[in-house]
């Protein structure tokens, strides 16, 4: 009960966080039919800046880190990605109104990771002064890639069985490569390498670090406008997608939180790290995931999985899951 009151009061206070405010603001002005737009070039640059900041910062601090500590959390990240996809495919297979391929693609997208949700979580942790290991951002690909690869591979096997596709050889390495070449993971890995191998402290402190919060606020606005814009697409498909997109992030996050808790006990994984792991699990990919799935499972309907993720999944991950897991961590650790 106490926990619930604490959670609810924190949730209310999170609604005053500018991150969430910008997200909701974006939805509202889109709903009001505003003609305000953020140009695509700015959107792409903001995503680049956020991922470079996260990457460089991680890279700079990894230098002195004991990377053996990372092994178990990395394993758990992979496990989370795989479990989310299998669970999603299973759940959708129970719903007759959902085409099988659409279920595979949606499960893959929710198993993958959203850079913007992750960045929002980092700012929220910073507000609460909760720290985490420097290498946590490097867990991102460990969850993202297995989820996408698994969803695509299973969908391909399924479609082969259906004889729909005749000459489809499944090339796992091609899917991994395609994921790594996506703009989000490229920027993150580039940032990590630059942070690790060069001495970017001055440029980091004068540019990437101070602009982080501001660019994130603009990105949240864009995500909000986009969430509203895609609701129509979502409406055209089965309502089960909306239900999945609402419940999924919470369940996925709790699974990861549980695994993170085990890592906390076994290898002293930090509470902040556990929260970030849970938020990664709760998030669904918005930048690289959709095109990768579109090529990998071409017969799946993008309106279904992108609508579900952008219109419901991401708002739930940011507005509910981030405060939820922070409060959980404060209660549990």
């Amino acid at each position, binding site marked *: 009960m106490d926990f619930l009151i604490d959670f609810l009061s924190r949730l209310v206070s999170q609604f005053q966080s500018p991150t969430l405010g910008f997200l909701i603001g974006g939805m509202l002005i889109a709903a009001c039919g505003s003609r305000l*737009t*953020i*140009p*695509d*070039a*700015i*959107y*792409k640059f903001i995503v680049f800046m956020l991922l470079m900041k996260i990457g460089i910062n991680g890279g700079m601090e990894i230098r002195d880190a004991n990377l053996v500590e990372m092994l178990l959390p990395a394993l758990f990240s992979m496990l989370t990605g795989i479990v989310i996809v299998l669970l999603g495919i299973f759940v959708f297979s129970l719903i007759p109104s959902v085409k099988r391929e659409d279920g595979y693609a949606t499960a893959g997208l929710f198993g993958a990771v959203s850079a913007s949700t992750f960045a929002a979580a980092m700012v929220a942790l910073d507000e609460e002064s909760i720290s985490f290991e420097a290498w946590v951002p490097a867990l991102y690909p460990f969850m993202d890639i297995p989820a996408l690869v698994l969803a695509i591979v299973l969908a391909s096997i399924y479609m082969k069985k259906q004889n729909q596709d005749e000459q489809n050889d499944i090339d796992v390495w091609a899917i991994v490569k395609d994921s790594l070449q996506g703009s989000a993971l490229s920027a993150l890995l580039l940032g990590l390498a630059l942070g690790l191998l060069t001495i970017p402290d001055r440029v980091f402190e004068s540019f990437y670090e101070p602009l982080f919060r501001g660019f994130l606020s603009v990105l949240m606005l*864009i*995500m909000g*406008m*986009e969430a509203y814009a895609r609701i129509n697409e979502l409406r055209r498909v089965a309502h089960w997608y909306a239900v999945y997109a609402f419940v999924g992030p919470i369940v996925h996050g709790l699974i990861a939180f549980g695994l993170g808790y085990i890592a906390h006990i076994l290898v002293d994984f930090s509470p902040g790290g556990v929260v970030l792991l849970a938020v990664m699990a709760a998030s669904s990919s*918005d*930048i690289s995931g*959709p*095109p990768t799935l*579109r*090529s990998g499972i*071409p*017969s799946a309907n*993008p*309106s279904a999985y*992108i609508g579900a993720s*952008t219109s419901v999944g991401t708002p739930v991950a940011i507005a509910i899951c981030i405060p939820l897991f922070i409060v959980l961590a404060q209660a549990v650790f």
Partner: protein
Amino acid sequence: MTLHIAEKVVIVTEKIIAKGVCKIIDECGATGYTIIPAGGKGSRNIRSTTDRASVVDDFSNIQIEIIVKNTEMAEAIMDKVRARYFKNYSGITYLEDIKILRPEKF
């Protein structure tokens, strides 16, 4: 000035398959192609041409125009693109008669 009869194949489809379509065009032996950014509405969706930040920008359209001298090549391109992509991706294709200046270019 003598003008020569030729055909223009037009393909309007999703940007995300641009590479694959261009490969088909090359394989069919065309000497080149022109790509134009496009948006539009068809049976499947509305795609915007505005420069609003589209979180999944790869899904917007392109119009590809290919000038070929003989109808067989034109039909081969149209047929292959349709067979390979138009079940899973939005797209239309059509043909126009044109007149070219230098037949040796195409």
